[in-house]
């Protein structure tokens, strides 16, 4: 039995959807001029920039959205399956700061930090996908979107959760992905990336978000709606009310997306939070935030759509018991909710900071959550009686062949980040931060970059040099290819 966690009973779920459909028609959804003609062409009234979407049409378009799809790794193999109850994790994305590994103080993140994080995440099987995790403060901001993706594609073979911060940078990102994939058709057939697209709460598809939805749909590259109601501030204070708003934002987004290209892959994603009425902050580690994530995903699953949520992030400013308690709890809840992609690991301080040390600790929480959802299986014909028949009341189970055959399936073995009293600790008692640092170093030492095909690498570098030059970028930070240094025009 696969353990499951749900928060909405059927009548409440149906009320949520009924009100969401009501909202998208009246008061409607603010949309950008980019999609006016598209919506009007489908018979949707658009008045004063507000689209009034009829339920029947929205339902028809929801039915056109795929129930599932795959993201592929660099070699073209399916690596992440969106849909059903599959659960995957990726590191949190687009963070401005990093906890410096030496000082444990927050500072602006640099390209080298992103590369280290990618290399560590590459080595951890808990992360099925990478993310464009950090904003690299050492490259010009106007090329930040594609430069982050370039570094991830360069150092990782896993699928990528990414996104564009403007309408124009989306096309540069798609161009880069197409080069890496071997052309636009190859990218469409075997997409390696999914793009987050965020409506502005409440019920507003801004110019660039509207444009991203349409352009991604037409490019055939998966889009992930990340609706972010803040309960009590930009959304109703009740959790149920915020879930309604989330559903309305997702349904209206899917309407735009499916009108642009029916059947194009799209994800029912979420990064909701409560709004702390004492501080005005949005705690990602609050239990109510996790409840919103779970409930939002449940609505998406009810509609048969692939799901995403932002979890496994804590709010403290240091790696401490609070941050890890929050991150661990939400990892477990997200996994039990069967959310297809759970983003957020490694992040703390209300998503303002990333930490590679936290990422390896979170990986342990994720591994436990992954073990949990495997559930308890009857792996033997007789559950216990046959084993007792062999041992009698001596209870010497350690010698049984079943023990040796099955203990690896039954038990998860955490890394040395988790203190289980392993002998290699050699009597020392390093704290969790020190154990995490050791683990990071161990993973970085073991990491070996797998190069792309030489022609693709050259093409990617030529692309990066061309685009970088436009923004005055000198060289390509962290793209280290000494063997190409002698070739004119490269590096």
């Amino acid at each position, binding site marked *: 039995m696969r353990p499951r966690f749900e928060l909405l009973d059927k009548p409440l779920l149906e009320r949520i959807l009924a009100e969401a459909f009501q909202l998208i028609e009246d008061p409607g959804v603010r949309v950008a001029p980019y999609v006016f003609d598209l919506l009007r062409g489908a018979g949707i009234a658009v008045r004063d920039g507000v689209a009034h979407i009829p339920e029947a049409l929205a339902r028809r378009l929801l039915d056109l959205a795929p129930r599932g799809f795959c993201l592929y790794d660099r070699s073209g193999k399916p690596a992440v399956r969106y849909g059903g109850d599959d659960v995957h994790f990726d590191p949190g994305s*687009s963070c*401005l*700061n990093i906890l410096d590994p030496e000082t444990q103080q927050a500072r*602006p993140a640099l390209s080298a930090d992103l590369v280290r994080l990618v290399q560590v995440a590459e080595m951890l099987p808990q992360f099925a996908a990478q993310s464009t995790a950090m*904003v690299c403060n050492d490259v010009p*901001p106007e090329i*930040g979107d594609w430069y982050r993706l370039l570094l991830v594609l360069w150092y990782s073979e896993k699928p990528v959760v990414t996104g564009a*911060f*403007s309408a124009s940078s989306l096309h540069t990102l798609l161009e880069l992905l197409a080069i890496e994939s071997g052309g636009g058709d190859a990218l469409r057939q075997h997409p390696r990336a999914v793009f987050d697209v965020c409506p*502005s709460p409440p019920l*507003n598809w*801004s110019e660039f978000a509207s444009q991203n939805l349409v352009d991604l749909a037409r490019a055939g590259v998966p889009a992930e709606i990340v609706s972010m109601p*803040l309960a*009590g*501030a*930009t959304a109703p204070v009740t959790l149920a009310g915020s879930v309604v708003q989330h559903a309305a934002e997702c349904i209206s987004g899917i309407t735009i997306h499916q009108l642009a290209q029916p059947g194009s892959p799209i994800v029912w994603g979420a990064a909701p939070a409560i*709004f702390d*009425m*004492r*501080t*005005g*902050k949005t705690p990602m580690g609050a239990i109510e935030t996790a409840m919103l994530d779970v409930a939002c995903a449940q609505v998406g699953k009810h509609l048969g759509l692939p799901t995403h949520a932002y979890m496994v992030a804590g709010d403290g400013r240091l790696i401490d018991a609070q941050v890890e308690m929050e991150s661990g709890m939400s990892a477990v809840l997200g996994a039990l909710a069967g959310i297809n992609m759970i983003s957020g690991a490694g992040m703390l301080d*209300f998503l*303002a900071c990333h930490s590679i040390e936290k990422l390896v600790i979170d990986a342990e929480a994720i591994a436990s959550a992954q073990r949990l959802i495997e559930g308890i299986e009857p792996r033997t014909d007789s559950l216990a009686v046959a084993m007792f028949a062999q041992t009698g009341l001596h209870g010497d189970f350690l010698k049984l062949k079943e023990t040796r055959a099955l203990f690896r399936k039954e038990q998860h073995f955490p890394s040395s980040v988790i203190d289980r009293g392993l002998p290699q600790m050699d009597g020392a008692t390093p704290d969790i931060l020190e154990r995490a640092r050791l683990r990071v170093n161990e993973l970085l030492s073991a990491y070996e970059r797998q190069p792309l095909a030489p022609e693709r690498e050259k093409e990617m570098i030529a692309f990066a040099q061309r685009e970088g030059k436009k923004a005055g970028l000198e060289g390509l930070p962290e793209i280290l290819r000494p063997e190409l240094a002698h070739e004119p025009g490269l590096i």
Partner: protein
Amino acid sequence: MPNDNFSAMRQSIIDGAPDTASGLAQQALAARVAPIDAINNGFVPGMHDVGEQFAKGQMFLPDMMASAEAMRAAMAVLDPELKKLGTQRPMAGVVVLGTTRGDIHEIGKILVGTLLTAHGFRVHDLGVDVPGEKFAAQARELGADIVGVSALLTTTMRNQKSVVEALEKAGLRSQVKIMVGGAPVTRRWADEIGADGYAKDAMSAVALARELMAQKTQSAAVEPV
């Protein structure tokens, strides 16, 4: 005016009751209480209580918003009378607030505006997606002491710099202090773009605004007349 009426005014602000506050303001005028006395002895102490209780974690943001609404309701009655009498309410400073160009997020800015108002600042909220030139023009027109610029996104944060540049271009930089805030904003960023201060949340924005006003007063005092 009996003290218990001032107490009722104070309580109407603490309760966040705009109708009661407005009614008490009208009663005060009918009883020929000087509007400035009603403000200083009745309503403003209520806002001070609210500010203190909020700082102690005993009141919450929705309470604060309701109190600010009650204060606005009372002032809507009393302000016209103050003007008729040619008097002015004592004020901590004039603040022009807005969210930077390209950014439509305003919760943080609204909170800052509410708290600044509660602490005696006169706040002019320019709304969202405000270009630097508009900040400068409004700062000049309204005689701003402080311009506050909010940004939620890493991409729009960069436009805070254009507000600093616009104020410089308009020749206002020496008269107007600039404070910046928003989720991605840091003290380092504020220093980098030449802003005068950074506040991490709404309460610290009030402390910062007071500090900037003190700096302004100090520098005015040492300037040759």
